């Protein structure tokens, strides 16, 4: 770090989200420009800062200036940043997003409404340090938690976690300390610790970001856990869909091994630990711990009844502690700063912070870490910047496919494990997907059931057949083919699936249906009684048409945009849509210039105006 006092440092966020936005091209442009100008500048890759809406993100630390974060950048702007800021003295504030620290030149991240809500613990270093450099982590007190743990007895370490009140961040919120105690006490010749990095919830990406941005933090937590419960072998189970996370975790492991943080005689003590990385093979149910263990044993990932819990009988029948990436990432901080510090954050029954992945129709999607007890309204409107394009808020889907859809009236709910279950949703892994007025809750529930039906391992009939039936009914609803009594059947069936399934997947699969029925019944009824989708989202219940009074006649954009040849020019030069050919791809609506807005979506009983092809 000392070198940066003298030479400028440029960091580029190259986590998967950054790459998807073009970060590698930006990185290359910066490197080329620096080489071409023969500048003495250090360039580093970092992980995700959480401000995914502004990716690709670049941070410049130049002596004499505050550290400034820029985004979204493209190659040209990145080159200009090098020439204008590093050769000239113009910090290109027009591209800047925020400063990292308060200063007189530019507003800092913490001065934004978002910054005021956030309290970063496990995200604190994400996007700021090079995840492939162990020293970058050490400089920020990395592995100090491990060093302290090794000075304590394993029982004392477990005690510290128990006192901290840490609850498992994988979804259910089970007290981590209790799990550790159970594993440590189970009599056995050997034990395992597994880091569950099989984040499969669509809409959640914090585990990926943590593994890509600060893999050492997770590794440190894992080593501490292994020491505490007396394990000599640990496995990091990562989704194969996250190749960069796999690579960065493997790299971290290699470095830790080289420095004696993993392997024999860790930090000069008598503690030995072998760690390996295992790639999942794409099955959502493997996030469930017994299914995860089955897949580690080379079998289909099918859960088994508990008890016995893995903590007493898991991998190969040995006591196995399974903790989520986030749970383990908190451990080094608790060891370093103490249980009391951790309890001082969050609420009494859910201490600490929560990491949320904000996505959907929110203006500024990304990752945020806030104290437990923050309200959904703060999360969506202050952290997330409200709804995109000034649309109306409709619902928030929290907790992934197992969670629920909550309406506006639930926005002032302080979020913690218990309040969410009371509202019918759950914390899950912390995925928060925001729906606006253009999203249909029935269609959203259908989407989740399609997902859970596909991902059901098929072991219990309630889950296998129940989710299929639920999906069938919901599909009929989105097509306007359901009857009113179907709504009650839907409810009863959802309750049965919940009660009759063996593992969390089946038990929580009906949550999207139950919560949408509870909070948005009128919308369901519109689909049944009027065969109408109020949000104009259900494909089978909407049609596109062109309003003759708004059509400019001479503009042919809609005709050119149509992939199906369904937009035609009438003899009077007005455009019309041939309903028989229309594939409802939305392109004409998007393409029609804003000054005309001639293409509209309609849902029955409204029909296209007279003269529209197919209805003339």
């Amino acid at each position: 770090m000392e070198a940066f006092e003298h030479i400028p440092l440029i960091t580029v966020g190259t986590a998967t989200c950054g790459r998807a936005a073009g970060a590698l091209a930006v990185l290359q442009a910066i490197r080329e420009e620096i080489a071409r100008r023969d500048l003495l500048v250090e360039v580093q890759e970092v992980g995700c800062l959480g401000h995914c809406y502004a990716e690709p993100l670049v941070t410049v630390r130049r002596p004499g200036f505050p550290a400034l974060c820029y985004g979204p950048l493209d190659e040209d702007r990145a080159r200009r940043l090098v020439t204008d800021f590093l050769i000239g003295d113009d910090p290109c504030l027009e591209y800047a997003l925020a400063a990292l620290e308060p200063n007189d030149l530019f507003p800092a991240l913490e001065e934004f409404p978002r910054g005021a809500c956030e309290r970063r613990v496990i995200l604190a270093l994400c996007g700021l340090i090079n995840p492939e450099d162990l020293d970058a982590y050490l400089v920020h007190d990395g592995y100090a938690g491990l060093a302290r743990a090794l000075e304590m007895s394993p029982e004392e370490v477990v005690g510290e976690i128990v006192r901290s009140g840490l609850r498992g961040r994988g979804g259910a919120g089970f007290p981590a300390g209790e799990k550790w105690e159970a594993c440590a006490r189970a009599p056995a010749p050997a034990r395992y610790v597994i880091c569950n990095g099989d984040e499969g919830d669509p809409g959640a990406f914090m585990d990926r970001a943590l593994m890509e941005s600060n893999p050492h933090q997770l590794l440190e937590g894992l080593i501490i856990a292994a020491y505490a419960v007396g394990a000599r072998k640990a496995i990091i189970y990562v989704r194969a869909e996250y190749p960069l996370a796999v690579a960065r975790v493997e790299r971290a492991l290699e470095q830790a091994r080289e420095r004696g943080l993993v392997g024999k005689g860790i930090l000069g003590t008598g503690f030995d630990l072998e760690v390996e990385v295992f790639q999942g093979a794409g099955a959502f149910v493997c996030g469930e711990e017994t299914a995860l263990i089955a897949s580690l044993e080379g079998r289909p990932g099918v859960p088994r009844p508990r008890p016995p819990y893995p903590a007493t009988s898991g991998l190969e029948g040995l006591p196995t502690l399974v903790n989520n990436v986030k749970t383990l990432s908190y451990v080094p901080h608790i060891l370093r700063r103490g249980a009391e510090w951790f309890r001082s954050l969050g609420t009494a029954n859910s201490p600490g912070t929560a990491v949320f992945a904000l996505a959907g129709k929110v203006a500024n999607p990304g990752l945020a870490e806030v104290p437990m007890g923050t309200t959904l309204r703060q999360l969506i409107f202050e952290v997330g910047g409200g709804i995109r394009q000034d649309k109306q808020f409709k619902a928030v889907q929290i907790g992934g496919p197992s969670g629920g859809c909550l309406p506006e009236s639930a926005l002032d709910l302080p979020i913690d494990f218990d309040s969410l279950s009371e509202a019918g949703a759950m914390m899950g892994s912390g995925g928060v997907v925001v729906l606006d007025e253009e999203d249909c809750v029935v269609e959203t529930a259908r989407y989740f059931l399609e997902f859970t039906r596909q991902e059901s391992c098929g072991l219990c009939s309630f889950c296998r057949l129940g989710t299929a039936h639920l999906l069938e009914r919901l599909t009929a609803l989105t097509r306007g083919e359901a009857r009113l009594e179907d709504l009650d059947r839907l409810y009863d069936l959802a309750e049965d699936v919940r009660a009759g399934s063996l593992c969390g997947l089946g038990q929580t699969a009906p949550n999207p249906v139950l919560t949408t029925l509870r909070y948005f019944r009128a919308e369901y009824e519109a689909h049944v009684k009027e065969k109408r989708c109020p949000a104009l989202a259900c494909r089978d219940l909407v049609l596109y048409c062109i309003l003759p009074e708004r059509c400019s006649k001479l503009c042919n954009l809609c005709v050119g945009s149509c992939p199906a040849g369904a937009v035609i020019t009438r003899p009077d030069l007005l455009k019309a849509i041939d309903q028989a050919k229309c594939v409802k791809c939305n392109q004409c609506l998007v393409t029609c210039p804003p000054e005309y807005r001639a293409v509209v979506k309609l849902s029955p009983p409204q029909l296209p105006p007279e003269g529209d092809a197919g209805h003339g």
Partner: protein
Amino acid sequence: MRETGEKEASVRAIIEELCVDGRKKPRELIPFLQKVQARLGYVPAEVLREAAGVFGVPEVEMYAVATFYHQFRLQPPGEHRIKVCLGTACHLMGGQRILDWFGRRLDVREGQTTADGKFTLERVACVGCCALAPVVVVDEKVEGKVSPTRADGILLSLGVKPEAMKPKQPESA
């Protein structure tokens, strides 16, 4: 025939190479299938049959594992793989429309490979780039905020001729 012979030889070579130390534990089964797929692009039936002995499990169990996990393909993929993400955020932001768009342009359904073997169209549950929805993974590259126009751009960059992308008649239901 020559092709089949070559394939058999390569299957045997792979099994020999990946199982040098003979008998393997079930624990190593998934990593083994992942290595086979990384090499060949899919897991041929021959591998499942031959490797059953090495792992000491019945062939049917090899199939049970290979078919349970979404990652494994039992058929060779096309030259380019287009994976459209249909996670929650992508779904809300129009992922299905992107999947349909590719399907129309390439004249394939999800899970299929084009007749010329050039493209395989797939859906993925979530690639974890929800903030940049809708997302498409083209071969190994993740592309964010994909619009139908961008989808056409991707196809053009992969060698699809513009005339091949002219409007087609929709399939009759």
